[in-house]
């Protein structure tokens, strides 16, 4: 069925390897001693800290406020703010970010948001979600409230809930659906209210039969929530492909899903929305998959945001082999890190410790023009041609070829028989183009300021000259007539 009638264009079928971590129940991590809560959880401007070094905070207290593309941050545990300083972050390239360093107390009183449980007003619901700092947990880490607010002046026909989890290894969404089905369905009910959508569809890949069954049971009383099984096909979980598979609608280039009347949200985000509105619990924890061949006991852990990866590994029984590569996220779209002394953020879905045998072939050879990358590209692009242009520094031309539509899903690099680092070319090109755009804006700003400055200086100069002239004229008029001195009079 898959090959005869595929729901999405292109795509690949990587080995799932989900059984490594989907057997055990989600483990609740005992309170870690220190937390490092990054102010920059996502692209865009960082959140602004509202606590200072030495402040005592209680669990659930607001510690940083977001704006626009950043969300509020709350203390996951009670404790003391040690300092607000840079710390190594789990980002590509291993740079540092500004973080709130916390020392946690064993006492665990909670503070919750003041919420109106019976709120029916859409705006009131969105405000609660915003106050709770809920972000999209599917990977983008975009504030959920900002996304929902964009539906206020649009007609949403269908709410799509993404439970695909098409990345190999990752099972955190699967476990959330199986263990927190009440929260997931409850969150969907709130989302239906907040977006004023008449119905919701939960899409789940058919490699998660338990989750499918449990959610179908949990939503049996809701006539407007439908659960659909989707074929296991990477990248089914990508928003555009997911919409195409469930609604047979293609989101036009440069448009958002809300423009075609659908609104997509991840299952774990729905659970967080439920906890925020029903119990006033801000988003301070998340379920992270720890998996990979080098790990002693792969499992899912519910950990406070800001827990060090090294502590998570220790609670999984440590490493049993050599981790040749540590990957944040899934193996298809994730990125490697080189330091385990880095904290998790709201968007950390998985941490993989991969053995040598699990890694792809390292050495790449020249392109053989087989065209497989073209046939698997879910966006219908020409990855080989685009990569060639990027390799030759012609970023403009690769942009014209559709670089901006690239999802960075990695299907092309996965299928490439020459092991070309295609996705790396595209991530580099996207970053580089972004920087160039920033530099162009900066140059424009500098030009404008320079012009304003020269105008101001010219104005100041004429004003000064006018003043001088006025003064001179005044002096000339009021200067007393030269009266002869007594000496002169005498002569």
């Amino acid at each position: 069925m898959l090959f005869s009638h595929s729901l999405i264009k292109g795509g690949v079928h990587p080995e799932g390897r989900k059984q490594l971590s989907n057997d055990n129940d989600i483990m609740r991590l005992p309170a870690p001693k220190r937390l490092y809560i990054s102010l920059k959880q996502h692209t865009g401007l960082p959140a602004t800290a509202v606590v200072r070094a030495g402040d005592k905070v209680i669990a659930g207290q607001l510690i940083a406020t977001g704006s626009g593309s950043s969300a509020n941050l709350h203390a996951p545990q009670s404790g003391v703010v040690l300092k607000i300083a840079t710390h190594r972050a789990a980002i590509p390239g291993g740079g540092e970010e500004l973080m709130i360093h916390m020392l946690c107390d064993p006492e665990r009183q909670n503070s919750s948001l003041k919420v109106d449980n019976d709120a029916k007003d859409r705006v009131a619901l969105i405000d609660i979600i915003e106050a709770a700092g809920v972000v999209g947990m599917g990977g983008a880490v975009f504030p959920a409230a900002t996304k929902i607010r964009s539906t206020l002046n649009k007609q949403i026909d269908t709410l799509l809930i993404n439970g695909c989890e098409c990345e190999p290894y990752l099972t955190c969404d699967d476990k959330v659906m199986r263990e927190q089905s009440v929260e997931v369905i409850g969150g969907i009910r709130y989302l239906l209210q907040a977006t004023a959508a008449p119905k919701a569809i939960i899409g789940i890949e058919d490699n998660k039969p338990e989750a499918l069954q449990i959610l179908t049971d949990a939503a049996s009383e809701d006539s407007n929530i439908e659960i659909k099984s989707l074929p296991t096909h990477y990248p089914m979980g990508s928003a555009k492909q997911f919409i195409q598979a469930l609604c047979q609608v293609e989101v036009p280039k440069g448009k958002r899903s809300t423009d075609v009347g659908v609104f997509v949200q991840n299952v774990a985000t729905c659970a967080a929305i439920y906890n925020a509105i029903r119990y006033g619990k801000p988003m301070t924890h998340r379920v992270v998959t720890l998996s990979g061949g080098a790990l002693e006991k792969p499992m899912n852990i519910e950990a406070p945001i800001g827990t060090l990866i090294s502590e998570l590994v220790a609670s999984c029984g440590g490493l049993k082999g050599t981790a040749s590569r540590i990957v944040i996220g899934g193996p298809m779209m994730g990125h490697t890190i080189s330091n385990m002394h880095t904290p998790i953020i709201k968007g950390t879905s998985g941490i993989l410790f991969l053995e040598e045998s699990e890694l792809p072939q390292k050495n790449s050879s020249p392109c053989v023009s087989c065209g497989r990358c073209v046939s698997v590209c879910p966006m219908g692009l020409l990855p080989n041609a685009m990569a060639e242009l990027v390799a030759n520094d012609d970023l403009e031309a690769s942009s014209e070829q559709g670089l901006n539509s690239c999802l960075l899903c990695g299907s092309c690099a996965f299928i490439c028989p020459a092991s070309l680092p295609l996705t790396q070319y595209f991530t580099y090109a996207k970053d580089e183009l972004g920087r160039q755009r920033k530099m162009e804006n900066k140059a424009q700003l500098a030009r404008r300021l320079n012009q304003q400055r020269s105008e101001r200086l010219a104005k100041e100069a004429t004003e000064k000259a006018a003043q001088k002239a006025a003064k001179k004229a005044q002096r000339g008029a009021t200067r007393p007539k030269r009266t002869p001195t007594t000496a002169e009079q005498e002569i």
Partner: protein
Amino acid sequence: MLSLNLLAIPLLALLMGLALSLAARFFAKEQDPLVDAISELLPNGQCGQCGFPGCAQAAIAMSAGELGPDCCPPGGQALAQQLSKLLGVPLQKGTSEKCLPQVVEIDPTLCDGCTRCFKKCPFDAIVGANKQLHGILTDICTGCGMCVSACPQDAITYKTDPIFTYGWAWPKPQQN
């Protein structure tokens, strides 16, 4: 006699000014549109790092092919690419990656608030007041270096633009 002596200089200045303004009107040379287009792109900081006294002269040299499109450090890679497109001159490979755009920073332990840098900055990218610590607005600073030479304390140094050091930067894959 005295009044004639006093009047001589202003009279001479007036005559010369008249002559110059007439000459400017009657012997005006039409500006090359390419020069205008280049001037439009240049940052206009008059920093002189290209080896010419100002941006207008640099634009003329560029239109004549004496100056390459990558001659302007404050403009950086973005400007170099715009200019190379405008002039139809390809950028030399490799030169762009080695020198990343620069900004300056003030060492707070050395600055004594003399306001000299503040007055020199062509982009108003320095804030400060007399006998107060000065600061650089990195979002605006083009790294033209006018302030560096103006600072009597040697408190201003260059660093790479945070756009290129901060955040998630992926390197270009190495070709084998």
